[in-house]
């Protein structure tokens, strides 16, 4: 379990450029949960995940992971963090070496490392034949998968994903999400401004605006509260925007749900003809169709 208690953070403290990034943030992440952190650029979400991964030091409050403080180096083996554009961090000569980098650092045996590399490549949907290729000869989508496989290879119990699908095309995106989110999977903290992904994947959402936690709840509860989305500068998912454009005030997370709601609100022809309107020149509306 991850527990975040009264966490605050200020950049350039004590200078004229002082900027408060986080104010008094508290929440828990239970084992197996998918918790999304949503917010506009500058809302504090990057600061929060860097604190959770122990990459920057806490200033106030406490973050514990399985009872260990994030200041304890031991959490490094429990928490994997996939930054935006992780492919920029590839550096080894072959795909296999790049993926093996962290398990090797953790002192695993060669057989174990090799098994982990194979397993991680399978998990992200990379062809095993690419193991000896140079990562720099691969397409952008493939490089992204190599970088993520490198994180999965050390089997972190917690996975922090920062906009993992940015810049990927729809099939590559679906593939990656399936690989990361299908069970068995890590406990996931998903940072995203894609409300469609949050609607489909998250158990709970934490919304940040100007460094404050302005909402914690399920995606369904969030999308029922337009004022929170507006305040946080977030857009509702496309299905919700469609419902609004059709003048329907309801919450839908998927196209299936939206379809049923629309069908209920607009019964199909000919039943949707207002009963008060007399048929034109005596003909029944069906004949007009």
């Amino acid at each position, binding site marked *: 379990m991850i527990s975040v208690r009264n966490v605050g953070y200020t950049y350039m403290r004590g200078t004229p450029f002082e900027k408060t990034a986080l104010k008094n943030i508290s929440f828990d992440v239970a084992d197996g949960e998918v918790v999304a952190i949503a917010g506009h650029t500058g809302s504090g979400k990057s600061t929060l995940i860097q604190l959770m991964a122990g990459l920057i030091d806490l200033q106030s409050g406490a973050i514990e992971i399985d009872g260990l403080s994030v200041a304890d180096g031991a959490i490094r083996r429990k928490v994997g963090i996939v930054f*935006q554009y992780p492919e920029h961090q590839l550096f080894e000569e072959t795909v296999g070496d790049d993926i093996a980098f962290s398990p090797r650092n953790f002192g695993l045996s060669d057989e174990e490392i090799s098994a982990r590399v194979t397993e991680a490549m399978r998990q992200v949907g990379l062809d095993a034949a690419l193991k000896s290729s140079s990562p720099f*000869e691969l397409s*952008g989508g493939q490089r992204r998968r190599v970088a993520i496989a490198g994180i999965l290879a050390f089997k972190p119990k917690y996975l922090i994903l920062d906009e993992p699908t940015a810049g*990927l*095309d*729809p099939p*590559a995106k679906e593939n990656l999400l399936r690989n990361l989110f299908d069970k068995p999977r890590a406990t996931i903290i998903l940072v995203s401004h894609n409300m469609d992904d949050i609607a489909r994947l998250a158990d709970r959402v934490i919304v940040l605006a100007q460094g404050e936690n302005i909402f914690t709840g399920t995606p369904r509860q969030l999308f029922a509260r337009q004022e929170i989305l507006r305040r946080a500068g977030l857009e509702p998912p496309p299905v919700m925007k469609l419902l609004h454009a059709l003048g329907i005030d309801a919450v839908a997370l998927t196209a299936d749900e939206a379809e049923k709601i629309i069908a209920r609100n607009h019964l199909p022809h000919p039943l949707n003809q207002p009963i008060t309107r007399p048929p034109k020149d005596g003909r029944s509306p069906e004949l007009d169709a």
Partner: protein
Amino acid sequence: MIRVEDVRHVYKTADERVALDGVSCTIDDGEFVAIIGVNGSGKSTLAKHFNALLLPTSGKIFVDGLDTAAAENLWHVRKNIGMVFQNPDSEIVAAIVEDDVAFGPENLGIAPEMIRQRVDLALDAVNMSGYKNFAPSKLSGGQKQRIAIAGVIAMRPKVIVFDEPTAMLDPQGRREILQMVKRLHAQGLTIIYITHFMEEAAQAQRVLVMDGGRIVRDDTPREIFTDTNEMRRLGFDVPIAVEMSDRLRKRGFKLPKKILTATELAEALQ
């Protein structure tokens, strides 16, 4: 005008990957053309051919009738075709916004007082006049991308090629850039806009669909995006209004063909 004639491009890597496999098209002055395609379909490779960042392995590209592969034409090509890339951080060269915008025109050898004027106009065009003396590092992603666009505008190109300019931006940044692009088009620039976002491509007058290094469709956004089977086959998302119209038709709703937007669906359901 840009004319692409049967262009092939093979990357000189160990596996000799064919990125473009016989591409032909013509882009007229003043057009707003979107290019879509999945990762690896060749769209960025094609974009880099328009201003001779890459040259064809075979085939020809002509800009205003000049062959991009001829060294003596390079100046004209680069001067008239500006490029904006995905990551604004890798395009910004100076520590102060106005110096960054001045970089291009300075390299063209333009007189300093003319540069001053061009920089002011370019910053004005992207609504960033108030940020002249800012450090680019203090700006948001959308603002940085607008500075990168101002740098291109200051060179007064006739054509701007955007290679996924919004991929790294948040929803607000994406809206800002798309508005900017539409305004530049309205002012007469030719726009070539490469994107993963179908709702952005839908704003263009014409869409080229790339698959496996070829142009497989060349049509209006309405014709392309309402062809749901083809869109799915090529690996694209179908716009939500198009998908919902399909679903409702299957339920027996009588809806007009080729509904593209939520507003059109709302009208049809009235």
